[in-house]
């Protein structure tokens, strides 16, 4: 299956991944081949089967909603590339018009 360039651009946007120029052509071709490969499932008759997300046999256990000891804020924030006053600091979310 051929993946069009604009399809790949849309996937990059959705996945928030910017591909470099030289890897784009190779990836586009490889993704097309992989999609073709996984499409073979469409030939299997699954009319009698409901989609299965979880494996059977287990009772998922939810803990009681009570306060427990947890990691210190400083320890958790310690790995962040940028932080300020106990928060993660990020670049501006809304572009300002500087003109």
């Amino acid at each position, binding site marked *: 299956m051929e993946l069009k360039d604009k399809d790949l651009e849309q996937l*990059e946007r959705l996945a928030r*991944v910017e591909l470099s120029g030289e890897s784009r052509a190779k990836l586009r071709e490889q993704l097309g081949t992989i999609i073709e490969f996984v*499409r073979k499932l469409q030939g299997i008759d699954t009319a009698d089967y409901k989609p299965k*997300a979880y494996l059977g046999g287990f009772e998922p256990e939810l803990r009681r909603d009570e306060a427990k000891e947890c990691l210190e804020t400083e320890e958790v924030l310690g*790995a962040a590339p940028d932080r300020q006053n106990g928060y993660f600091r*990020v670049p501006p979310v809304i*572009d300002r018009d500087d003109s």
Partner: protein
Amino acid sequence: MKDLTELSIAELDRAYASGRASPVDVVEAYLDLIDRRDEVVRSFLHIFGDRALERASALAAEGSNGRPLYGVPVAVKDNICMRGLPTSCASRILEGYRPPYDATVVERLEEAGAVIIGKTNLDEFAMGSSTENSAFGATRNPWNPDCAPGGSSGGSAAAVAAGLVPVALGSDTGGSIRQPAAFCGVAGLKGTYGRVSRYGLVAFASSLDQIGPFTRNIEDCARVMEVIAGHDPHDATSITGSPPPLIAGLESGVRGLKVAIPKGTEKWEIGEDVRKSFDETVDILKGSEADISEVDLPDVDASIACYYILANAEASSNLARYDGVKYGLRKDVKNLVGMYEQTRGEGFGEEVKRRILLGTYVLSSGYYDAYYTKAQQVKALICDGFEAIFKGSDLIVLPTTPTAAFRIGEKIDDPIAMYLSDIFTTPANIAGLPAISIPSGVSDDGLPIGMQLMAAAGNEQVLLLAARFLEKRYGFCEKHQPDFGRLEGGERDGK
């Protein structure tokens, strides 16, 4: 007398009890081997020599106190968190990251007296079948450094095969323990989904991931699994109740065991040497006291396509957390979305990007039902198929991989060919079944071949006792070992 680094866990235990050696002697001996051999093998990303020696001397002072892994050196795959120590997942995006907590398996190993010696190489975020997708360079197969050790837990498999540790942990999402175990001639076990806590395992595909051990023999495998298995309140998918005892009954043999052999094996596209080893395994079992029957396996071709849809859909969601905000790499861009896109574009390697994009594709509007929902239906069909088989059988026997180890570089630009090396291993992940790979023989080129046993969910016990039975019949370790001299000769890059 065997060298300290050749001892099984039980033998180590006796060496400690008799005063022949202390944990410090053993850790020093292994660190020395790592020093001599890992320049060629490159199985470790981080070696915690000082920490390990400190821990060993603390253990020596405390004495064993009956701890099951007292003084046993262990390597841990570098996608398993250790507090304050690097956990890179072999990715640039997590280079230098030090998690603030220990994975449950790490806590359990250390409580049991194990000494964690270092962390091993992997395909970036456990995505791959050769360990070539590591941002920090490929690991080499100790049996032939021109060959891949398999993957994604190739560093752990190679470290055990090269004799650098008696035990290593890996993780298995589609065969990432069993396939490298087969390629490196060691035992590798993936338990039932939920058997071992995933808390502190960096998530790839949460509905499929399981941590498990690599060891040189089945008894060691049973010992380590007994330590790491069991319910953990930190993992909501962890199985409640006590896990089965594995060491007791290990020697009970296969009398009366109902063993299923797949039908239609003549149509499998597998190497002649793998076929020969499989046929020999069937003959061993036919000549034993087990009851043999033939069964129709669920469609293995469908399993692999189903796997690549489900695993990558989950991966595209799980890996959204690497955004340059909370940890790891950040590219300096003046707006948030641009920062996300460039950080992820530069921080992730090619295979990871390929999988994130594929996962995004199968989950995107307009394609969701045709791919993701369809794969979940196929998953239901595969689970049903196995359930039917295990109503009448205790075990299924099949090869772990279609061929022995391939050469480094051979499949790296052909994703489908690479994916197909997992054709026999993905079904156990999709259906959540326990499965083990054990070395059964060598190929015409002298590379190990692995056979795989699968059992019903929850039945690790039968898996291990059958593996132990076959291990004795194969006599693999007595007949074959890598050329350790070649690893110590400083021979690099196959030159």
